[in-house]
């Protein structure tokens, strides 16, 4: 409730002040998250670098296709639904090798 009220007040502030507060809030949350991890379960605090390495949204777009990985099961599904099969066949699995 207090948090929601804070968000409403934040929304009414001028842009520059709001941006500064949001930046500070992000820094505090990140610092607290890292500190809390140190107490119990140490984590990767260099999330910025982690995000540089992980696939971007554009690089992950191919995942919107629900690829099957078993040719026989694809065959069964194709026969059941009355559709042709599209097979993407590469040396090294196309969904997880490179």
């Amino acid at each position: 409730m207090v948090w929601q009220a804070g968000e409403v007040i934040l929304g009414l502030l001028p842009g520059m002040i709001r941006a500064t507060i949001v930046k500070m809030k992000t820094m505090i949350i990140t610092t607290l998250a890292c500190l809390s991890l140190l107490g119990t379960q140490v984590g990767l605090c260099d999330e910025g670098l982690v995000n540089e390495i992980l696939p971007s949204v554009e690089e992950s777009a191919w995942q919107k296709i629900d690829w099957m990985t078993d040719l026989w099961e694809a065959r069964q599904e194709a026969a059941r639904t009355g559709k042709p099969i599209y097979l993407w066949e590469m040396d090294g699995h196309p969904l997880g090798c490179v």
Partner: protein
Amino acid sequence: MTDRLLVFANPEVQKLLKEKFIAVAADDWYQRRRKDETGKFFWKVASQGPRDPDRTQQGHYVFTAKGKLLGFNNNRGPEKRLAMMNEALKKWDKLPAAEKKGVIPKKGKSDERYHHELPEGGQIVKVFTRCLEERDGRLQKMAADKVGNQAAVDHLWFQKSEVEKLSRLISDGGGEIPEWLSLRIAKFHLLDNTRGEPRSWKKEEVKKWSLKVDGKGKMSGEFLIDSADGKLGYAGKFEGALAITKGRLTRFDLLVVGQHWGSGTYTQGARPGKTPMGQVFRLTGGKKARDRIPPQGIRWAPGYWSPEK
């Protein structure tokens, strides 16, 4: 990887695949070798295509559930692929109804030499790898428009009993990660797979190694891997955390940052000299088929499960 970005991220290709086809992806190295019903069916289709039967059969095929080939190509770029798909659909439309639907028998026993599944109770960690560059005082990804600059993905597999061993190590206060896991990571996962299939490292190429976990699950360490001629290598540091609850990994986060150098037979085009590379290991539930793709290094399974031997 280029296909993922150029072809299968294309909205028109996606729409057509989702609406008109059953999409399946497979590793040709296994598929063309397997001596089982799936292998026989694959060869029935592939033998109608243009490929030399004694070489790779990789490419893009459209066919019926009964095995009639309707289209093939191995070109990159969405235009040619869309043209092939649409041509294949025209042939499909002309087929009699009996050719389009039917009942396919239950799958028989798989050829286990060329078919790997995650062992019962096993767990999967995705391994993302990306070449980096230093800009503005920090490591960053490079422009996405060049082959090799995208994130590559592989999978690290654990057996249930292995997770239990790690759990005991942590509850005993921690120590060096056992050799079976250290060498599995070193030989099969500390690889630059951003431009193609890299070779795995040999045990004797792992020149320096330390990967520890403490009693709270914090992982840290460093490594130096170098080929005998010094032309291919990787040196870097680990930082991460793992957590195990009731014998199950609930967290496996490992960041690897280092310098990689050299190209392999199928990974030509590396940047000259030693250049920054980063890797992120992250636990996945394995619900999607794409998350259950076998590790690239498991083609010879005993070598993957017991890399120390």
